[in-house]
């Protein structure tokens, strides 16, 4: 146990409040307070709701209280959506009401300059009296289990999942959830924490490290408040579950004004490189990379090693995939002569490669041949993961894109389930790539087919990527993480 009970208890109130006050609702449905109230109502918040506005009345079918003090019950969490200058006063009222936790959605603090910084000083005085603050300048918490969602998330998935996301930027929190949604990623908790005036990234990470619903942690940060503590928390957490961090704002290599040799060499980039090496966090360099890697971790049950077999329906893709493996430090062991012979016997005699990577020389291999090749590789070669590149695993694909005669669709229903069956039989990983190359508006039918196929695979525990490069990069992140931490466990 790494988080103290008191801290955990307070943070629990941010994620599982039994009662919640929304301060700053108005008749204007565009106001933040009203949008927030309507978002969690629509999403299905399970606790009691108390909107606050001086005029009272009713909003969205809920009684509005003029003042916090009028609310008959105890309140676990206040969500403050008023203009920044009003926030310190409102938090005083929260304290008077006995509220210990507040999400401050309002902007206009240190991110805006001197005036905002002064306002944060006032905030500090209230904070010192005991209330804990998430934000300001944030979108709050998404926690499917308790029915909480972000200001912008009334349509986020209702069902939860294994991923905890901590994002400084509310916009990115929103974008990541929306993108990940179609990729089968579901969240235990998402925290858009903004300026981190009080509770900061290290606090949230500590909480998620201890949260049994969270198996993988994804983080977007620009800067950290308590760097050293953050390092220590990430280091400890990484031993328990993967922490994938995408650090924004790395390109500023301002070597600071320093009078020592050491100081002049220690630019931002060098220090963050060090942070990743030292903490064991998985480093993502873009939103795509963060999501790709999260998918790979969420679906990597078995231990995966570096040894990969690559099968592709085209020679070019096989070459590119092999290059990507090499660069990422994955190995493509050459198959034994016997295995090569078996594979050869199943493929057309010309234009194929059978050593690994395997060039099938056709994007729509016969189902039986594909099954036998996959089974042969897993049963007779020391391979941890098979990656499938450039292959039509759909029934409609070939006809839609290549104009392949409809007669070839015969018996192709089978092909879709081959990766599932082989994965199930051997308990090893299979990664699938489904390319996005057909992007014309008219080909929407192909796109719909691709998406439903992707959904099908992901829900069956098979990660899907648009390109081999991205599949390889994500897998390599998992392999390196497992090598580092399984070695430490002595396993």
């Amino acid at each position, binding site marked *: 146990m790494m988080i103290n009970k008191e801290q955990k208890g307070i943070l629990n109130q941010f994620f599982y409040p039994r009662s919640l006050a929304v301060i700053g609702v108005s008749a204007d449905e565009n106001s933040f307070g009203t949008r927030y109230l309507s978002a969690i109502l629509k999403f299905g918040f399970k606790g009691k709701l108390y909107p606050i506005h001086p005029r009272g009345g009713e909003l969205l079918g809920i009684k509005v209280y003029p003042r916090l003090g009028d609310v008959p019950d105890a309140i676990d969490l206040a969500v403050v959506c008023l203009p920044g200058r009003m926030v310190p006063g409102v938090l005083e009222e929260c304290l008077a009401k006995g509220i210990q936790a507040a999400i401050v959605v309002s902007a206009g603090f240190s991110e805006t300059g001197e005036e905002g910084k002064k306002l944060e000083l006032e905030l500090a005085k209230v904070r010192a009296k005991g209330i804990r603050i998430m934000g300001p300048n944030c979108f709050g918490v998404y926690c499917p289990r308790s029915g909480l969602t972000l200001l912008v998330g009334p349509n986020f998935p209702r069902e939860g999942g294994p991923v905890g996301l901590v994002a400084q930027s509310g916009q990115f929190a929103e974008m990541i959830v929306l993108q990940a949604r179609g990729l089968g990623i579901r969240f235990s908790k998402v925290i858009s924490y903004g300026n981190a005036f009080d509770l900061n990234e290290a606090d949230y990470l500590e909480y998620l490290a201890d949260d049994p619903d969270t198996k993988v942690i994804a983080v977007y940060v620009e800067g950290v408040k308590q*760097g050293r503590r953050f390092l220590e928390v990430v280091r400890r957490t990484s031993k328990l579950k993967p922490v994938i961090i995408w650090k924004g704002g790395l390109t500023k290599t301002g070597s600071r004004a320093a*009078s*020592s040799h*050491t*100081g002049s060499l220690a630019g931002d980039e060098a*220090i963050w490189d060090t942070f990743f090496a030292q903490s064991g966090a998985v480093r993502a360099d873009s939103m795509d990379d963060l999501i790709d890697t999260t998918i790979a971790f969420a679906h990597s049950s078995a231990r995966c090693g570096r040894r990969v077999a690559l099968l592709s329906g085209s020679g070019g893709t096989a070459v590119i995939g092999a290059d990507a493996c090499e660069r990422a430090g994955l190995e493509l062991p050459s198959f034994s002569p016997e295995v090569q012979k078996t594979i050869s016997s199943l493929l057309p005699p010309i234009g194929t490669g059978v050593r690994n990577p395997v060039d099938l020389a056709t994007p729509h291999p016969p189902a039986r041949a594909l099954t036998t090749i996959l089974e042969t590789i897993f049963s007779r070669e020391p391979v941890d993961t098979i990656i499938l590149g450039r292959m039509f695993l759909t029934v409609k694909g070939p006809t839609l894109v290549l104009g392949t005669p409809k007669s070839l669709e015969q018996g192709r229903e089978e092909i879709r389930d081959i990766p599932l069956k082989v994965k199930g039989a051997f308990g090893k990983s299979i990664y699938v790539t489904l390319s996005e190359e057909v992007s014309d508006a008219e080909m929407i039918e192909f796109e719909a087919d691709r998406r439903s196929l992707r959904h099908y695979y992901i829900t069956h525990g098979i990660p899907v990527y648009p390109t081999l490069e991205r599949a390889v990069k994500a897998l390599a992140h998992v392999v390196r993480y497992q090598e580092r931490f399984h070695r430490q466990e002595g396993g």
Partner: protein
Amino acid sequence: MTAQAIIEEVRRASRTLLTEIESKALLCEAGIPTVETKLARTKEEAVLTSKKLGFPVALKIVSPEITHKSDVGGVKLGLKTSKQVGQAYDEVLSAVRQSHPKAKVDGVSVQRMARPGTEIIIGMTKDAQFGPVLMFGLGGILVELLKDVSFRIVPLEREDAREMVHGIKGYPLLEGYRGKESVDVSFLEEMLVKLSRFVDTHPEIKELDLNPVFAYHDGAVAVDARVILEETPASAVNTLNT
């Protein structure tokens, strides 16, 4: 003198830059071996000290206002006799008077020439977000040209120190490349861990260079050292970053 006493003395003089002698005394307190270095205020003292320490010796200007001693002709190496020491003393002082006529000069430092080893640089600087950070690399022109260095954020565990030393591209040189003597890598790792502990307990230190450190097959020694303190004791507390 304890580390705290050295720091306080420098503060009383309203300085932030420690002289080489003060820097080395501080590092001694950290348990880091340095080449024994004495202050000589006069030519006669310089000669006498040289005899006591044993030839050959090095003389370096001691002035709280001069940071880059060799750039101003303030360093003379490999002096083998009393006569050479006397002559070097005059040369160093006149060179410094020419380049920095107003600088306060305490005298020269005298140290025995260390036996040659593999040149290493070890240092500490503070990052605005992460606090103290240690650096390790191959010294001399390799650090100037290739910037082949590695960093770790304080506090360092032994494993961090190991990864840090093994993490530079030039690591094979430390293992004895092409018949060159190998160096005591675990001694260097131990030095890094000691330094981490020391800077962690002395937040007043802002930056630090041990450049060069000579590494041998049996240990290592800091030949030159430079320590810079935080501007005010208050900013030392702020950057403690805990």
